[in-house]
């Protein structure tokens, strides 16, 4: 939790220090008024490489799932999570992402959890204005800790199928189906679904 402020601060600095973004926002607002009279609106994806090749973005997602203990070989608890994600989009094809995760594990009682992840996302197809263009695959490394652990935390990895849809310019809805594995202390597989919103510039 104490790093979330730092993460948000880094993203804020990146956005504010990106001169093209702040200025372009104002210019685009004026241009939109004129362009709307002339032609259909383009989405971020359709405009693609006409924008800056590197574009910062953020996402906020939440969801839940199941925990399958490796030693027990049983699904014996549930997980909930909220994720604050910072992204750097590399054109339309790839994204680097870092996120902070806060949630809980339900095993009899509720055990607060926290973690962070570092990974990437790759688009499965070039955007052409179809609703399924927003399919991506994601993968990365995760560090996770739950209250009451003897160990400092547990490392792991994840893979996900991610879908996003631009509902209006710069603003997206997202959904993920995630499979992950955690090692060392509290070895488990997890299967989770998350949904949320994101934006990029």
């Amino acid at each position, binding site marked *: *939790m*104490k*790093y*979330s*402020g*730092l*993460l*948000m*601060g880094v*993203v*804020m600095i990146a*956005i504010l220090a990106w001169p093209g973004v702040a200025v372009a*926002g104002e210019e*685009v*607002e004026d241009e*939109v008024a004129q362009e709307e009279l002339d032609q259909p609106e383009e989405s971020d994806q359709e405009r693609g490489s006409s924008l800056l090749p590197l574009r910062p973005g*953020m996402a*906020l997602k939440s969801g839940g799932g199941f925990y399958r*203990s*490796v*030693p*027990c*070989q*049983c699904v*014996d608890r549930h997980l909930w999570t909220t994720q*604050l994600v910072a992204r750097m989009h590399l054109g339309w094809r790839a994204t680097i992402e870092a996120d902070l995760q*806060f949630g809980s594990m339900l*095993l*009899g*009682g509720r*055990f607060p959890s926290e973690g962070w992840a570092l990974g990437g996302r790759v688009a499965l197809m070039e955007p052409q204005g179809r609703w399924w263009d927003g399919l991506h695959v994601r993968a990365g490394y995760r560090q996770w800790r*739950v*209250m*009451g*652990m*003897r*160990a400092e935390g*547990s490392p792991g990895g994840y893979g996900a199928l991610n879908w996003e849809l631009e509902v*209006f*310019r*710069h*603003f997206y809805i997202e959904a993920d189906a995630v499979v992950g594995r955690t090692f060392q*202390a*509290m*070895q488990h597989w997890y299967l989770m679904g998350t949904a949320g*919103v994101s*934006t990029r*510039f």
Partner: protein
Amino acid sequence: MNRTDYSTFFVVMTLGVGLALGAWGCGSSTACGEFPLDDEVRQCMVSEIEMMVVETFPFAEYKQVDLNEFSRQLRKTLEADSADDVFVGELSQAVSSLRDGHTRIERRGLQNPGVAPVDVEEKNGQLVVRSSDEDRFQKLVGQTIVAVDGIDADVVLRQAGLPMETGIEGEARLSGLTQALGGEEGTSLTLTMKSGEEVTMDRRSFFAEPQVTIVGDYAYLKLETFGFIDDLEKIDEGINESLDSRGLIIDLRGNGGGYPSVTDGLFGRLIEEEVEPFKLVDRHGELHRELKAPSRGKTFDGPVVVLVDRRTYSASNYFAHRMIEHDRGVLIGGHTGGGAASPQRGKMLVPGVWFQVSTHVLQPPTGFHSESGLKPTVAVDPNEPTAEDDERISTLTATPDPVLERALRYLEGLR
């Protein structure tokens, strides 16, 4: 608002949430203030304790505690102008008059709580080594200690009355003389014996991990604590190793408790079908929640013996209660320590001094709660001589263990 405005709004909101969470995560506060404890801080500490006990303590009637007398005793601690550590000790004494091990003041000062590799006791006013599971300290058993790190044994005996040390995470249970000899893991302490000999030893981690040992046809699972949620995985591995054994001994002697989720997880490996839940109720009998122990994973279906003693407390006592409530096993050893309360309210009064109060009581599906402890199915005096040399015992412990010996005989069909 146009679409760019929506995006900006979203970013600002997310930043705001992030910074707020960051500030929350970074911040820490106490209920009453800091050391040194001035009159205002002490007044606050007394008021907070009094308020929490009066509002939620569930055992006043059961333990025949006069809460007015308790309040009087508590406020009396403000009369003397004692040193801060003495004041905290006096508060702890007042709280102990409630005779509830879960309602207590804790010291949370150790980063990595460590304990001495010898067990000591008070005998006739003297500090004596009771036992050690390390061969090199066996020669000290029964000997009198006159000083610890140069501190007179009389002072050490008084330090045993200090509040329990639970470590900064609140997960350890160092009380009495264990706490008096405790410190940071890895640090050393020197015992000066009555004979004049000086023995130096290193403190080991309080947090011993679950251990399973296969001894012939039987499996022996030593659990010193239920205080770590990730121990459930280690317990599962231990049960997996035990699946082919003819019987299982679960040793909860000295286990001061921890998370009921871990005990229910262990119990879930011993049953195939769902059992009735225990209930957590407040002092008015209102249900707070049910504690269920669903079957999980591969079941160990052989006979189970649970070794218990006076220090089997709280969540360990709860596990023992489940075993006999659902007729899943027997208890061998001594009367358990009890502790059927759940302390779900607590505050850091000043840095390193935590107060918590029992708020709910654990009720079994039938009968009464086990706050005062459970009688063993087979009572064994831990000091009685062992009947015979058993290689299996010597595999598990350096000292004679009549309780373990009886457990093995029980499993072999002798009672």
